[in-house]
Every structure is written in C-alpha cells, then in structure tokens.
C-alpha cells in the first residue's frame, strides 16, 4: 500500500521471517488519506527487533524533526534501513552496536536527550549512514512531498506552464524585456 522505499521482500527475508512491525494510521488531513483504500499502514521489518526499530524510529525523528509529518514517512526510513541490514551483515552489526550505544532510554527520551546522545556519536559511520539514508528516503516519498508542498513531476500533466510556474502575485511583474512571451 505504501510506496516502496527499498523494503522489497526478498527470498532471504521470507526465510528470516518478520522480526518487527511498525504500524500506524495516516492522519485524516493527510492528502494521501483520500487516495488510498485504508488509512492504516504497516511496515514489516526483517532484521531489526522491536526495541531496535523503536530506537531507530526515534533517531530518524531526531535527525529530521518535522512536526505534523506523518509517522508513516519516518517508518519508511526505518523499513529502508532494515532492508539494508537484511542484505548486509556489516550493516546489521553496525546498526545493532550503534543503537545499543544510544542507551535503553533513548527511544522514550525527550528530544533534548536524544539530540545530546546523537551528538556524542555524530562522527561515527553508524550515525552518518543513518543520516544519509534518512535524507534520501524521508524526502523521497509522496507522503513527504504532500506535506512539504512539492508537486513532483509535471510532464504527465502538461508541465507547470499552465499550472502555476508564474502564479506568484506578491511581487511586481517582470517587464517583458527581462522575461519573454508565453509560447504558442
């Protein structure tokens, strides 16, 4: 149901089985809620256990804290990192050690506490790889696009030529000599 962000279930994952599940309900105001059959969502995990996934989810929230951005977008990041962990033993052990190092109270701690803990590991490969993956996955899915007001590709709709590329009205118009005519 949710856009695939690298959580494709491979043969190996079936063998390993589901190790944890992240679930939630899309907010009623989320634009996607009107487009999909059910507002409930679930991301199956195949490497991380429930404690690890809770800590990772909290870490992703702390790296990119956006009030009002649906938890489903953050869960996709956790799902993508979990997918990396399934594919790579090295990633799995790096994650396990990194998450353990954040402390058992990390996931439930205040944002200030989480920030302070992450600052102590900021230069580690563990933190840097989670940070990069967060940027790549969090802002690369339609839930975030709707939240931040990014409309994505426009070719299928005829471009933005007649759909707002020049609809800004709060500044003076540009004189014709500095711009150009609408094409015909």
């Amino acid at each position, binding site marked *: 149901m949710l856009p695939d962000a690298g959580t494709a279930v491979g043969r190996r994952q079936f063998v390993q089985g589901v190790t944890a599940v992240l679930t939630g309900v899309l907010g009623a105001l989320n634009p996607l809620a009107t487009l999909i059959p059910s507002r409930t969502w679930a991301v199956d995990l195949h490497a991380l256990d429930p404690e690890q996934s809770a800590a990772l989810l909290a870490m992703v929230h*702390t*790296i*990119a*804290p*956006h009030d009002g951005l649906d938890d489903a977008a953050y869960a996709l990041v956790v799902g993508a990192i979990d997918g990396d962990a399934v594919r790579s033993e090295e990633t799995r052990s790096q994650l396990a050690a990194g998450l353990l190092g954040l402390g058992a109270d990390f996931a439930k701690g205040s944002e200030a506490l989480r*920030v302070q803990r*992450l600052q102590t590991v900021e230069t580690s490969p563990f933190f840097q790889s989670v*940070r990069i993956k967060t*940027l*790549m996955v969090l*802002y*690369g899915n339609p839930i*975030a*696009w709707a939240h*931040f*007001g*990014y*409309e*994505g*590709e*426009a*070719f*299928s709709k*005829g*471009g*933005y*030529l007649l*759909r*707002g*590329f*020049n*609809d*800004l009205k*709060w*500044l*003076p*118009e*540009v004189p014709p*000599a*500095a*711009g*150009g*005519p*609408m*094409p*015909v």
Partner: protein
Amino acid sequence: MSRFQQNDADVVVVIGSGAGGGTMAHELTRRGLKVVMFEAGRRQTPASFSQNPGEAFGQLTWLEPRSQSGTWDPVKTSPTLPAWHCRTVGGTTVHWTAATPRLRRYEMRARTTYGDVPGTSLADWPIEYEELKRWYLVAEKRMCVTRRNGNPGMPASNNFKVMYTGARRLGYKRVHTNYLAINSRAQDGRGFCIQQGFCVQGCKTAAKWSTLYTEIPRAEATGKLDLRTECLVTRIEHDAAGKATGVVYRDAEGREQRQKARFICLAGNAIESARLLLLSESARFPHGLANSSDQVGRNYCHHLTGFVWGVFDQPVHSYRGATLAGVVEDENVHDPKRGFVGGYHLELCALDLPTLPLVGLRYGWGREFASVMDNYRNLAGMLVNGEDMPRPGNRITLSATIKDAHGLPAAHINCEEHENDIALRAHAQKQGQRIYEAAGAKRTILSATPPATHQMGTARMSRDPALGVTTPYGRTHDVPNLFISDGSVQTTAGAANPTLTIVSLVLRQADYIGREISAGRI
C-alpha cells in the same frame, strides 16, 4: 544502424557522446567520414527518462567510484561523488540545465587582465575572442539559444520574479531569464518548454538541447555512425612513430576489444579524458599519452559554486519551471576593488525536494536543518557560478586506492582552494543574500560547494608544447592524430557554464579537421 569493422583503420574514433563527442560525431559524419563513437553508459530516450529524482539520478549519473583530497568542500560533504556528470548516451547534455553564456573577452586574456596571481597557473587563451565568437554564433543557432538569433526569452517564473525584484532593487541592470539552449518556441523539430522543472532528470519534451536527440540521430541518419553503448575505452594505443592507432575497450559484457582508428577525438569529460590519457602510458609516453608537458590532469577547474536560498513569507514554488531560467550578469566583470580577480554569474536555480538536502544545503540535522525543509514552499533559490583559479596541483591523477569495475585505477581529484576562490565565492553568496533581503526574505541560507558539474582545464590549449597539452585547435602536441574535444582544452575557466564553449570549440575543431584532411595532413 551502421557497424564498422574493428580492424577498419579508416574510421574515426570518438570517445564520449556528450556535448563534445556527440557534436563531433555529427560534424564528421556529415562530412562523409566513418565514425565509431564509444559511450560508457546506456541509451535512454525522453520516454524512458524516470520522473522520480532519485531514480533519474541512478539512471543518468557517472557513479564509478573516485577518490579525492584537498581543501574544497566535496572532500567532506560528498566524499564519493566529487563531480556530478552523466554516463549515458548524450552525456552530460542529458541532465544539464542548458545555461549558455559566452566567455567574455577579458576572461580569455586571464593572465594579462588579472596579472600575476601567486599560486596559480593563469594563462591567456591562444585564441582571440573574435575567433571564438564566430563559432559561438554558429553554436547558438544550432542549439536554439534564447535571446539570440531572434529567439524570445523564457517567460518569467515565480523563482525569477523574486530574483529580478531583489536584483533590481540592489541596482543590478543585466537581469533576465538567461541564455538557455531550451526552445522558447517550437523549432528544430522539437517542441517548446512546458516548464516542467525536470531539466536535471532529462527533458521529456526534448525542448532542451541534448546531443541525445539532436546531433546523434542526425549523425546516425548519415549511415556513417557506429555508436557503441556500454563500451568503456580503457586505453589509446599508438605505433612506433607516436601516432595513435586505435583504442582498447571493454564491451557491455566486460570483454576486452580493440578498434583501429585513423584519428581519435577524445571527449570523455575533463576528469575521464585526463584519466584515459594517464592510463594510456607507454614506453614512449611514460607519464601518460600526449603528456610530455606534464600538464595532463593539471589545472583542473570546476567553477566556484554555491547555492543561496531565500525564505519568504509567501509561496514561491521555485521547483516549477525551467531550472536555470534567470541570471544576474552584472558581476561577470573584472573589478579587483571587490577583493578578487575574475567574475561570476548569479543564476536562478531550484532543486526538487529529495535533492535539496543532499546537494543544496550545508551538512546538518535536527531542528535547524529541518526548519529549512519546512519552508520548502516559500524558498527562492540561486546558484553562484564563478571563475576559479587554475592551479598546477589541482589535478586529476590515477587513484592509488580505488579501482573501477575493470580493475583499473579510478580518477583521483585533488583540489585546493585558492584565496581568490574563497574571496570570490564569499562575495557572490553575500550578494545573493542581499538580493533576497532586498526582495523581503526573512532568512537566507548558504550551501557548501556541491559536487562539481563543470569540468575543465585538464588538457589545456597552449601554443607552447611545454606549457599545454594541445594546440589552439585541441590537437595534442605529442600525438598528431589525437584531438581533445571537450572542456579539458579550456586554458582557463572563465565564469561561463562550459557547454556552449565546448560545442563552439568542437564546431571549430571539426572545421579545422576537414581542412587538414583536405590538405593531406591527417
């Protein structure tokens, strides 16, 4: 599709299919020459271009590993991707944003104009401005550049309205929707720009000029082009007399193959062209092919870049519309009173949401970082493009640590910023901030240096064989039937986005090659 024999010593080998190689293939085939063009990447079409920014990046980008060192930002901010260019048929003209300014007269006389700047290898171009301008006119016509030859300018986008308002309030005069090789009206068998804002993902309407759907199909229509995709040239071979005889390459299955050649035009992008020359070392050329000057790979220039973002109270939706459709030209002058030599353009720019945090913002996380993303709707953007100083130590070498998929040393890039580079970029980003403040920004944000999208200077032209790799026509001093046909030949960088200059120099080079063939000198 034509197929020529691998032992046909009558064919011309063109390495690379971008602005330089694609244009050269067209020029040679229309003169009746048989051309085998090698492209390391696959062939896409406007229909196959992905409209998902992350996917498109993977589809088009040169992702072979590289190592790097030095003081410039990408060492820290983009360690595995120092340069962002393409590996696909059409090369970097598939993802370019199509800004086509000309170099200015003073920039082609950099050493004379700027004087002795310690720590640089500034030199004057061995070509007069008037000579290059003649070919700019031809190239601009071919590429349907806006604001030239009666082509209308692009209409003003939201993002440009912000830039224009602020720049005019600061007193800038030369502010317009840029010179772009994008159809502002239908012509050349291609439609007009529908303001998708997906220039970097490949233009699905083909309104943007790319050799993929202009020069290359025209070359194929002559029946004289044999385009070999997913074929990476790994070595240029020569005979006992020092003439190039052909190339060694890996085909799509990774098998080693050879192709004989009458002469060779190398257009692999300034990083890979230098790497290939260095990989082609031999007993006769122990430091790399055509490298008796020891200048191959040196003087690497990439332009001084950096984003400036303005956060406004009201929506801008800067991602809507042609990405680079705006420019402030006033600072593209030589005015040492600003505290540096050379000049810069401020060019309109926007990034799609997924690309913004990866390329357009300084390293960061937490609330400060997130607050920029939260303002995505209300963000206006521009990109500095300034002249960087050529330095002998800023160079491409063969990596001691990283190898490519075939086990060959990858390119290593060393880049030390000159104090002039730092001063120019600081001035340019400050002016960008002032523009947005004048337009009412409540906050401005500066980026680090993103991965380099312009590669120049690694086989520079010079009349003196001791000081440069090629003649003023891009013919290597050491190997008379080897030509360099990309941005590598630029003696200095200037502040002009390089594609128009590359195409113009290649058109001029092809004309020269035609004359040399007629005279029996090739």
